[in-house]
């Protein structure tokens, strides 16, 4: 950057004397173009996702009306009596997500508060990566644990179905805890020390400082982390596919089997529906709903993080 001034200006220095050969200039340009092409891959990825999903979704809605998709309450595309009401799938996704967030928000926030406000720095340096290990475990493993450990355990306490929203949601919550915890921790750590000291000077206890000073100051980051966690839960596939089952139902009974949007998509993919058939197109119609929902959540999360950020300096 700095050298371009005199390199591009032959009046200051002779161009020939600086460049050993002219090909160097060309190769610099070629490199810049290649790097730009690399950056463009990400734009093409988004473009590809949007085009492919909406092309097939468009052709889906030529056979099934919007009313059938959004106003019907039954989802039975694989039965003889076909219904295409998407709400049971959305219901399954929201139910498991709500359970997951009921776990992830308290666990994630209390981890973040403990690591930032109470733990010794050396202890926090060990505990933080340990908690983040939870995010590195493949999600199929959480499905295994939910179905074969947690469900049998909980069935001693309540009449759960073998596949149920509760176990899947609980494990998904554990899985998302580091997402909520990490981003909240960064937000809480960014609250300047002077704010805390100001509160202490007024005679407020440590706990009151946390709830009345630190958490409100970090609120934008915390809310962003929660929305991002919801987006993760909505898009999670393997845990709910394995442990929550494949029964599209309009229910808030967490002891029953439900089917999420992602689980349906995995089910129809594994079922070898021929390309171009209506069943195949439902994959994209549901995918479009999922994509729009997660995209909206991600955008809101970024917006909250930037818009309501408290600026100290």
């Amino acid at each position, binding site marked *: 950057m700095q050298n371009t001034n005199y390199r591009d200006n032959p009046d200051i220095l002779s161009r020939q004397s600086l460049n050993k050969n002219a090909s160097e200039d060309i190769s610099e340009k070629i490199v810049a173009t290649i790097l*730009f092409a690399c950056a463009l891959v990400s734009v093409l990825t988004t473009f590809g*996702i949007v085009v492919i*999903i909406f092309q097939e979704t468009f052709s889906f809605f030529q056979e099934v009306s919007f009313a059938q998709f959004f106003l019907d309450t039954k989802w039975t595309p694989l039965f003889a009596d076909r219904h295409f009401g998407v709400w049971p799938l959305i219901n399954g996704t929201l139910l498991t997500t709500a359970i997951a967030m009921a776990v992830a928000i308290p666990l994630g926030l209390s981890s973040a508060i403990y690591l930032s406000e109470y733990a010794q720095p050396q202890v926090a340096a060990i505990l933080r990566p340990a908690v983040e290990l*939870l995010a590195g475990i*493949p999600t199929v493993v959480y499905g295994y644990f939910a179905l074969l*450990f947690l469900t049998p355990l909980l069935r001693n306490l309540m009449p759960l179905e073998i596949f149920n929203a509760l176990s899947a949601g609980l494990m998904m919550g554990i899985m998302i805890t580091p997402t909520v915890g990490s981003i909240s921790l960064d937000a809480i750590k960014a609250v300047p020390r002077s704010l805390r000291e100001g509160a202490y000077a007024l005679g407020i*206890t440590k706990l009151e400082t946390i709830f009345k000073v630190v958490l409100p100051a970090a609120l934008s980051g915390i809310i962003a982390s929660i929305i991002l966690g919801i987006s993760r839960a909505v898009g999670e596939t*393997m845990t709910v596919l394995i442990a929550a089952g494949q029964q599209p139902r309009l229910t808030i009974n967490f002891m029953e089997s439900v089917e999420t949007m992602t689980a349906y998509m995995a089910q129809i993919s594994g079922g070898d529906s021929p390309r171009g058939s209506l069943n195949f197109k439902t994959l994209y119609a549901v995918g479009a709903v999922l994509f729009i929902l997660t995209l909206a959540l991600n955008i809101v999360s970024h917006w909250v993080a930037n818009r309501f950020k408290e600026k100290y300096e």
Partner: protein
Amino acid sequence: MSTSYQPDDSLDSSAEFTDNVESRETLGKVFEVLFLLGLLIGLFVLALLLFDIFRDGLGRFLSPGFLTETPSRFPDQGGIRPAIISSVLLGSVVILVTVPIGVGAALYLEEYAPKAWWTAIIEINISNLAGVPSIVYGLLGLGVFNYLLGFGPALISGALTLSLLSLPVIIVAAREAIRAVPDSLRNASYGLGVTKWKTISSHVLPYAVPGILTGVIISVSRAIGDAASLIVVGAVGFLTFNPGLFQRFMALPIQIYSYITRPEPGFASAAAATIIALLILILLLNGIAIYIRQRFSIS
């Protein structure tokens, strides 16, 4: 909080101010324990999960032929060799594809990109891509690699799909690593008349290697553990040969899912044994990363 100058009834009635410090401090202690408990619950579940998997699967994992044989329809026979080879191949292709493209994109955004509206669009776009669910990447892979490019449900389709899934993570990590390289290094190089690309390739990149590598390993571990996108692309649950790039394929997470869905009881321990294999593979990757990071780190 209320700083009203009006005489307050509640203040009048209570003749003297009590600060209640003791009960407030006790509440503080209670919450400290609660926060710690919240932290420990996560760790406890992690420990329980690992314990449960090793209890269920270690015996099967150590049984002869589990890692080297092809699957069998009987739960206590056969092995997971095709799944292991698939996963190693998938991971290798992901690294070969994403490292050059991801680092290239990061270099462009950090070193070349002008401040313009379309640069901002590329940046917003990358952060949004990082939040797209993996099953949606599956739809993209199915459309582009299976149908448009005609690879069909082959390993290469799955590998390229996983590559697209990994790219945003690598780009974000590489950008952070490149941004952390001090400007004095660049300026010293420019001051000697070195061209921009030579400065980047011989000074900026070597300095950024450890950070870039961390991002690569995190995202490749995620790709190796991902099953959702591969189900959509067309991975199979039962494979009796070692897959090539253009053949039908599976992967360790797909093998695990396939074992879990079998009703016979013995398959649960086969699933747990396969999970052990997958966790070891991910640990191995992280071990290599730590080794290379220490080897290449410039102090």
